[in-house]
């Protein structure tokens, strides 16, 4: 019994030591980074973390910000809200970071951002695209990416105007806020423009077999002009592959979840005639110079091409924060927030970022990509005419 | 079937079929208060099945069981126990995580316990009840010479003591009818004789009616006023020990040459 008690006491003491062991940095600026490196969310977040680390490395190699090196202080969120909340508290209180960023999922953002706000520092989410997020954490929560309403509207307008689609089959992943919103906003804008939804079906994140959905679609009398499938990056390839294998040839459209090499790798020829809306054309040959540079640097650093769109978003988020600090002229959180809000036309690999007065969702153009001969090609740059209310 | 007045237990036409196999067939019984009945028969003759039907652990395929005039044929085991039928088991079934005392208390508390509110608030009435339960249980244990083991883990007792504890526990339920399933299995003769004596004592002290399943012939013969012999699920003989012992069917199917053997042995030893 006594030894047990002793173990507990020693453990507690060690905890306090480690917990309070934050080193005050004279010559570094500490930015808190929160991603889920393990657990169910890891496949979305890990590329973002890579991108962010790459950006920090580049910034530091170029002399840092305000003459200081940037240090990304990072915890694993473990895809668990309680852990994330604790980690955010550590970042704010123990590590005394000047800003925080991370996460690709609004749940996870919401577990961390209020803590940051309470401590008076901004939280920039690199990949959570819910346009409702900023309302939920006033003043301190920023998106580095466009809202889902924007890209869904862009997709719907492109479908009606360029693809001349009048009827659509809608398949939505019911397990993610991202896909739910995407589907909802697309439907809203598509119907608004006179289109019809012939059949709406759904699946759960991680489902591997879509034969029942496919059979149901094929049992439909009226064949839809196109398919809109709201899916996350881990599922898109599989879904497209299985629909194509079953002989569904109509155009398939989706959101930035499709922006992953897995789409072509998994679906192969099936990926032809797939359209999706995303931040920019991430192609080592056809992309902008910034994109080409990013892809090359990423490949060099991590020995793989960027896994999905989130890699670029993580990269841009760090660049965005660094830029704000530079413009603020100090690492004071208040000044950083002010500078961040004033960001205008900051170029990034996922498009230029501008925050309008009073809005914490950036204005970004939407890129529509078409998969052709196994590569992503630019179909159109769209600025939607009307965006559904968040 | 006619109903008899003053009968404690009336069983008519009781049958149980397992996958077409007749485990018990057309079993019947009239039991008067205070009686000690023995059921004997070869293994697999259906003795334990009768017990299990009687205590609700098995549902009969056919037939009826009335206990003190009430139909208990399809009642669940806990309800039957609450009506006053206690039993022990062929293989010992003590509560392994409990002490000897707790094992007995867990049976006693059926009749007397504190409500959930009193328990949660730790009212004085709760502690009074607990103390009374404990002292009554200790008393029960004393009767069987187990009082000094009250605080020990039940399963740490020697085998014979465990068997006795099971009987104490069944008694603590306060039953009218007690079913004992091979109470002396695995005991040597000294221990068996102790149990024999005990069964007589508790019968008198608690005004019990007892049904006994046993393989220990001398014990059954000495203890029981009436014996039923089962074979292949059917009653093949019924009567006083002397009648049963003399029944040629019984000798042939069950006792076999055992009696002769024992005579041989006596002859040899003598």
């Amino acid at each position, binding site marked *: 019994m006594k030894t047990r008690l002793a173990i507990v006491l020693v453990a507690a003491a060690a905890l306090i030591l480690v917990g309070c062991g934050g080193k005050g940095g004279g010559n570094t600026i500490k930015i808190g980074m929160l991603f889920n490196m393990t657990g169910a969310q890891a496949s979305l977040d890990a590329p973002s973390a890579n991108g962010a680390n790459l950006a920090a490395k580049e910034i530091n190699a170029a002399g840092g910000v305000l003459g200081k090196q940037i240090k990304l202080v990072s915890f694993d969120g473990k895809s668990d809200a309680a852990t994330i909340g604790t980690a955010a508290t550590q970042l704010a209180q123990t590590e005394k970071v000047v800003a925080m960023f991370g996460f690709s999922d609004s749940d996870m953002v919401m577990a961390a951002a209020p803590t940051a706000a309470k401590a008076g520092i901004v939280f920039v989410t690199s990949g959570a695209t819910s346009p409702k997020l900023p309302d939920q954490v006033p003043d301190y929560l920023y998106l580095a990416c466009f809202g889902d309403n924007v890209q869904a509207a862009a997709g719907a307008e492109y479908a009606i105007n360029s693809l001349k689609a009048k009827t659509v089959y809608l398949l939505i992943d019911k397990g993610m806020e991202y896909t739910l919103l995407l589907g909802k906003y697309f439907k809203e804008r598509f119907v608004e423009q006179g289109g019809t939804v012939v059949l709406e079906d759904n699946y759960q994140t991680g489902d591997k077999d879509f034969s029942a959905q496919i059979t149901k679609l094929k049992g439909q009398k009226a064949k839809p002009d196109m398919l809109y499938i709201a899916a996350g990056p881990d599922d898109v390839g599989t879904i497209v592959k299985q629909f194509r294998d079953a002989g569904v040839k109509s155009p398939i459209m989706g959101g930035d979840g499709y922006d992953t090499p897995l789409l072509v790798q998994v679906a192969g020829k099936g990926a032809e005639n797939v359209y999706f809306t995303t931040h920019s054309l991430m192609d080592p040959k056809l992309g902008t110079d910034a994109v080409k540079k990013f892809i090359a640097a990423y490949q060099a650093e991590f020995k793989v091409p960027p896994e999905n769109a989130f890699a670029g978003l993580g990269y841009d988020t760090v660049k965005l924060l660094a830029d704000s600090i530079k413009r603020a002229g100090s690492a004071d959180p208040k000044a950083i927030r002010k500078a961040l809000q004033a960001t205008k036309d900051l170029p990034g690999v996922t498009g230029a970022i501008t925050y309008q007065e009073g809005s914490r969702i950036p204005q970004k153009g939407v890129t529509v990509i078409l998969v052709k001969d196994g590569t992503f090609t630019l179909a159109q740059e769209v600025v939607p005419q009307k965006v559904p209310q968040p | 079937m006619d109903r008899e007045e003053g009968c404690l237990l009336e069983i008519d036409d009781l049958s149980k079929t397992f996958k077409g196999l007749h485990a018990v067939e057309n079993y019947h019984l009239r039991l008067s208060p205070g009686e000690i009945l023995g059921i004997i028969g070869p293994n697999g003759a259906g003795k334990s099945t009768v017990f299990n039907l009687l205590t609700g652990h098995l549902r009969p395929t056919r037939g009826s069981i009335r206990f003190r005039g009430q139909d208990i044929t399809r009642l669940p085991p806990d309800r039957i126990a609450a009506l006053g039928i206690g039993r022990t088991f062929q293989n010992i079934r003590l509560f392994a995580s409990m002490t000897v005392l707790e094992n007995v208390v*867990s049976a006693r508390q059926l009749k007397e316990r504190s409500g959930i509110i009193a328990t949660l608030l730790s009212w004085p009435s709760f502690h009074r009840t607990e103390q009374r339960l404990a002292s009554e249980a200790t008393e029960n244990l004393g009767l069987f010479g187990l009082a000094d083991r009250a605080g020990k883990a039940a399963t740490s007792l020697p085998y014979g003591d465990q068997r006795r504890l099971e009987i104490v526990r069944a008694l603590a339920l306060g039953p009218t009818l007690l079913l004992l399933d091979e109470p002396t299995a695995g005991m040597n003769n000294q221990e068996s004789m102790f149990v024999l004596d005990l069964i007589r004592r508790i019968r008198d002290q608690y005004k019990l009616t007892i049904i006994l399943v046993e393989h220990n012939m001398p014990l059954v013969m000495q203890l029981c006023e009436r014996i039923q012999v089962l074979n292949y699920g059917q009653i093949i003989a019924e009567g006083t020990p002397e009648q049963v012992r003399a029944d040629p069917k019984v000798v042939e199917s069950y006792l076999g040459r055992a009696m002769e053997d024992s005579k041989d042995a006596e002859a040899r030893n003598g």
Partner: protein
Amino acid sequence: MAMSTRLQRLIPPAVMIAALAAILGATDLVAGDYLQRIVIIIGINVILVASLNLSNGFTGVFSLGHVGFMAIGAYAASILTLPVHLKAVNLPDLPGWLQGVAMPFLPATLIAGLIAMLVAFAVGLSLMRLNGAYISVATLGFLVIVQVVLVNWDQFTRGARTFAGVPAYATIWNVWIWAALTVYVVWRIGASAFGRDMRAARDNEIAALSLGVSVIRSRLLAFCMSAFLTGVAGSLWAHFITSFSPKSFFFTQAFSIITMLVIGGLGSVSGSVIGVFLITVLSELLRNAERGFDIGALHLPPIYGASQILMAVLFVLVIVFKPAGLMGGREIDIRGILRRIGASRRGKGAA
């Protein structure tokens, strides 16, 4: 004499409450948010694990689905406490009579617990008839069903979307009052006729039935009480985290609670507390350590996932070497410890 035994009975709880209050007071006043968070998490986990013990430990009904009750408690309480203006935005399809409700924390928590209990009663009526691994499977099924319903019942839960804006009502104090209450209740039940029924049914169902113990009823009692407390913990958790979605209440959470329970020792109330404390503190330590650190010139890179791996290995080691958990179903004898302390003090005084 009677008076003095009564008093004696009161000493251990009184000492414990005083000690707990002192620790909490110190944490509240002195410690930073980080430590306070850990203390709150430990408190909530104590409720979860101790109440799970009531079902899984006392009755042997090994439920894998208790996180479902936690989810029910979290959602029910949050719907009740969500401020009216947020309800209009976040839950526009809520029935009218709920739209205008924004309850204080305590009644919302109690109602949430009761709802969890009612659900437990409804599913328990049939589930409690099963045994062994099958009951684990069926409760796992229950968890999946809860999960599916939460994801699809948009009107009340916002579906898979984040349920946000829950007021941060949970404090060290209300969490630990509930935790102390839970431990007390579980301990009282364990030492009563109800607890003996439960253990009897666990140890030997057939014998218990033959002694008039209604096995299903006593299991159901444990299951329902346990569900109530788990629902309460869900409410506390929700008002601590303040935003969540159905996936917060799934297997990962289920396994973590069960791990604490088993490491502490099934059937031991003090074991539950010890298990929670050890695992929470240890995983916190490992989580900090896996980020990598420098020892002198040696630089260890971060290895995310290492903490989970170490916890898994530790768990297997405990099961192999201490199969019954650290407490092995026994309890810490507080009265005995107090007596010993008293004796040693007296001894010293005499010397």
